[in-house]
């Protein structure tokens, strides 16, 4: 919203200055590049590959081909399927799980946390003690229980991970809301006749968004890890669907003769989690106005 009269004086919008500060952090930009590459490959996979013919169908002639040979850069697995294609399709699941878990936790955690923080008193006590119960159960154990009760599959996995993450968001949001609800602009909004919902959603939550965005990236990382772990244990996505955790699980039997069967999915998990964490770090610094320079 630059005015022509003041010329090109340094007057960036808030978003632009956050982006600028983020871009100064090289590690975070690395993370963003890795993530973008992963996202682009996963999204456009269907343009280049045939899912059923190349990622699922077995090919007995091409088993255990080593990486970087015979046109398979990541080699092939015990059924002769190209590892690169399977990694790319596995990335789809990981990304979907990451985004939806974080989205689920964000929406419900924010609503619960905002209600608890804003109304305080009995509402706060009731909601937060309920959240404490969830926090007391280890997230992995909770996810295992939910998957065991409801069965595997993508939707149940999302649900299991999401529910386990909700209390974290509720706590973060509640803390910021409690600080913000006494600020003068909230009082001013009340004096203007704004209702509770409007005050919460258009005045308080936008101010608390900074810490939430950081938490979202971290949740995505942990959700990817968690789904891989569940699949590794045989509770998540079942073979032959390509999923990094289950690829690792089936590959471990051939660890000695074909180490690339576990190295490749292991690296994929590591890199994606790392990239989310790096982005989270960079965002936290970029969104913190005290570190402005």
């Amino acid at each position: 919203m630059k005015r022509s009269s003041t010329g090109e004086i340094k007057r960036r919008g808030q978003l632009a200055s956050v982006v600028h500060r983020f871009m100064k952090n090289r590690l975070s930009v690395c993370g963003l590049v890795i993530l973008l590459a992963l996202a682009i490959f996963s999204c456009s996979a269907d343009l280049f590959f045939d899912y059923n013919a190349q990622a699922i169908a077995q090919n007995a002639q091409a088993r255990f081909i080593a990486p970087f040979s015979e046109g398979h850069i990541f080699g092939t697995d015990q059924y002769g399927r190209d590892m690169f294609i399977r990694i790319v399709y596995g990335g789809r699941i990981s990304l979907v799980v990451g985004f939806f878990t974080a989205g689920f936790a964000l929406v419900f955690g924010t609503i619960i946390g905002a209600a608890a923080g804003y109304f305080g008193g009995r509402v706060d006590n009731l909601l937060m003690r309920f959240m404490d119960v969830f926090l007391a159960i280890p997230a992995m154990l909770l996810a295992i229980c939910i998957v065991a009760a409801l069965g595997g599959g993508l939707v149940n996995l999302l649900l299991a991970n999401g529910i386990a993450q909700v209390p974290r968001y509720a706590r973060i949001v509640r803390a910021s809301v409690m600080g913000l609800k006494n600020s003068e602009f909230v009082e001013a909004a009340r004096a203007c006749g704004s209702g509770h919902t409007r005050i919460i959603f258009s005045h308080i939550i936008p101010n608390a968004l900074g810490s939430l965005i950081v938490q979202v990236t971290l949740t995505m990382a942990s959700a990817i890890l968690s789904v891989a772990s569940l699949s590794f244990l045989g509770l998540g996505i079942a073979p032959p669907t390509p999923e990094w955790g289950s690829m690792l699980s089936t590959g471990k039997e051939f660890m000695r003769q074909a180490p690339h069967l576990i190295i490749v999915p292991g690296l994929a998990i590591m890199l994606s989690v790392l990239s989310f964490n790096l982005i989270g770090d960079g965002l936290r610094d970029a969104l913190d106005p005290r570190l402005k320079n």
Partner: protein
Amino acid sequence: MGVDMNQNAEKLLDIKDLSITYITDDATIYAVNGLNMELYRGETLGLVGETGAGKTTTALAIMRLLPDRIGKITSGSIRFDDVDVTAASEAEMRTLRGERISMIFQDPMTCLNPVLTIGDQIAEVLESHGITSKEELSKRVDNILTLVGLPPERKNEYPHQFSGGMKQRVDIAIALACEPQLLLADEPTTALDVTIQAQVLALMKELRQKFNTSMLLITHDLGVVAEVCDRVAIMYAGEIIEYGTVWEIFSGTEHHPYTKGLFGSIPSMSEGQRRLRPIDGLMPDPAVQLQGCPFASRCPQCSDRCTAEKPASHRAAGGNIIKCHLFEGEDAGGGNDAGTAG
């Protein structure tokens, strides 16, 4: 500034015997004790007093925005036009706030939301009071911004891109967006420097006349009061101890000892160098309910009666109402109806 200029005017705000307490775990604070106040349509009333006298509490009570669970109206009534504020439902109050009564806050730096554009914040008031069409909203926002002297093109900017005086203009724009009948201004110029102060006061005066808005101006700056107000109420320890027109208060000869003390604390430009005469002592502890006059402990003319018995309101010869035993004999007719000032 005639004495009886408002005798025929319509009463907009009528506060009777209002008492407010703050109840915390540690203590009960008696913030406002038996306050009576009237405000007529189009009139400006200055509410003057030192920090902690209960001025802001009174304003919040008028909007019924006292802190939940802690602040309580223990007795008395507040009537705004045809609404009984103490008895109205929350939904009724919400339609009142912003549309018929609005408030300007002390610190323009903190009372705007840092993450919303100022245009959105002005639009919000209009939106919560029934204007929904996008074009209408943006037209009204442009209008009100022009009215307070800001270029409408800047409505898409954020509060941090404005200076303090401009932010106060935005506040005034928000407060006046719905053309309210009553404006509560809680020290609107305290956070501004003197030149900007004069601009903002002039702006408020102009807009008030335009919309025929009444104003309750809370301040401890007697200069501002003399500039803007029609009537003045001097508040001390939760009570109004003197009440009259600006003329009566600033030019009259008979005053409450506290008012005398207040004026004695202002440096004079005309007289030669003299030391200021501040009022000794502090305001009484608001956690204690007093038997007698709240000013007794600091009053140079205090007698035994002052510590034992609460003074009633008396009309002084000049026409102003004074709550003090010293003026008991002097009732200039009709003033002694237990503090119903005016």
